[in-house]
């Protein structure tokens, strides 16, 4: 699902965020991306969604060479991926229903008769069946993150990328979000979750990819937050 071959990323200001990274994350895997702030986790994710382009090496997502996408191909590429952010990134002037439906509209599905059943199914799945008509500002942080996950799922992406989804939430709410991601993974979606949350990583014993100073220092199946 995700293949990186000798990928380096140097920003125009000279900062080398990633150095010679190679990795292979197969379909249906649940992988954690861990490491201290500034280690390169965000750059890693930006490369996957074509927010940035690698300076060296090649990035493949779902078989597509991400670095070689033309500008007009990028929107179509992104529609196959779901992304969840630490700061939720919901559209403030749209209701929960409109936020969740947005990826469908982007796909050209504009008929509410078609969108509504899917929106309601997704909100049901994330545990927010009664919030459709509210605005994001009227929800708690945990609820907003659930809406963001519902939005990330509605178009049935093959890959869900979560960039520190629990970072702004209290531990209990964070746990609920992680459990939601596990459930999504169980239905067959590949999940990549960048996190600082040691408890979660240690508890779940999934694949752990540890990045530090722009390089992969550890890659373990059934790993923990810190090396054993």
């Amino acid at each position, binding site marked *: 699902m995700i293949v990186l071959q000798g990928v380096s990323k140097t920003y125009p200001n000279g900062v080398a965020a990633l150095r010679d990274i190679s990795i292979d994350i197969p379909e249906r895997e649940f992988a954690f991306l861990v490491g201290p702030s500034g280690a390169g986790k965000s750059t890693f994710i930006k490369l996957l*969604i074509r927010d940035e382009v690698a300076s060296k090496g090649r990035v493949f997502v779902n078989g597509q060479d991400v670095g070689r996408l033309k500008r007009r191909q990028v929107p179509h590429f*992104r529609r196959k991926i779901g*992304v969840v952010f630490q700061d939720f*990134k919901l559209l403030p002037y749209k209701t929960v229903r409109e936020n969740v439906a947005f990826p469908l*509209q982007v*796909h050209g599905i*504009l008929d509410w008769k078609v969108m509504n059943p899917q929106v309601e199914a997704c909100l049901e799945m994330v545990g927010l069946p009664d919030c459709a008509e509210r605005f994001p500002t009227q929800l708690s942080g945990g609820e907003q993150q659930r809406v963001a996950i519902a*939005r990330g799922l509605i178009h049935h992406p093959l890959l869900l990328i979560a960039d520190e989804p629990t970072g702004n939430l209290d531990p209990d709410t964070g746990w609920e979000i992680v459990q939601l991601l596990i459930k999504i993974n169980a239905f067959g979606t590949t999940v990549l979750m960048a996190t600082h949350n040691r408890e979660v990583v240690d508890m779940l014993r999934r694949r752990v990819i540890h990045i530090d100073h722009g390089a992969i220092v550890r890659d373990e199946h059934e790993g923990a937050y810190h090396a054993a």
Partner: protein
Amino acid sequence: MSTRGHTTRPDIVLHACKSGLQQVNRNRLMSIFSVATSAVMLLMLGSFLVMVASLNVTLRALEQKVNVVAYLKDGADPAAVQNLHDSLLKDARVASVTLITKQQALVRMQQTLGSQSKLLAQLGDNPLPASFEIALKSAGSAPQIAQLVQSDPAVESVDYQQGVVDRLLAITGFLRLAGLGLVVGLAIIALFIIINTTRIAVYGRRQEIEIMKLVGATDWFVRGPFLFEGMALGFMGAVVSCCLLAASYRPIIAKIASLLTFLPLDFDPLLLPKLLGVVLGGGLAVGAAGSYISVRRFLDV
């Protein structure tokens, strides 16, 4: 029921229109601010257009007062006089030619002198010459016409108040240029301010644009609602300023006319509809342009 693949271009335009208007409604404070800004700018521009248009009418009226007067020799050959009259009428620069006979000249003089007209009787024979009053289409051709007429054998002398005409032409030319410069300058300033207001509004929502792009929206899908929003706000601003212009137009014109009573002012009856058309069209265009320019900066995600 429409399903995937059956979505047509009009559907997407309609969707963009709907969500654009929804944004206007949900972002009400910013909308009111934008409408007010464009209303004030368009009102200012509209009033200056009225002023410049009336200035032009005034200037044209002034210039049309310029006449070339050709005094005819006493006892000139009637055939030669007729010839001159015909050739002047054929000249493209001439608006009209009026023959003032010796008798008519005397009557005029009597009217001018009023109660002192008895003095004229003491002169015995009518001393005044017959003349052609030549009205011109443009005051600028006065010297050429004067020269042409001067060389005619039937003509004694020519008068067109050379110094006055030259100065008049210099002044009207300057005023026209100044009016045009004022309107163009003001239009640029208005455009700049309206676009800047839009930029501030869009800047506040740059994250929304980023989110839409990250979720896989194309540039046009993001831009569409903003364009309709900009057009709606620009149009509303234009409607507000149109109402104010329409209400204040007649009083302003009346005021100008009463200040300049010595001028035969004749306003273009189509000025108001033309003006409203310009303001409404301008509001729509500037709104759309402002959104397009402002959104473009943030689309590179």
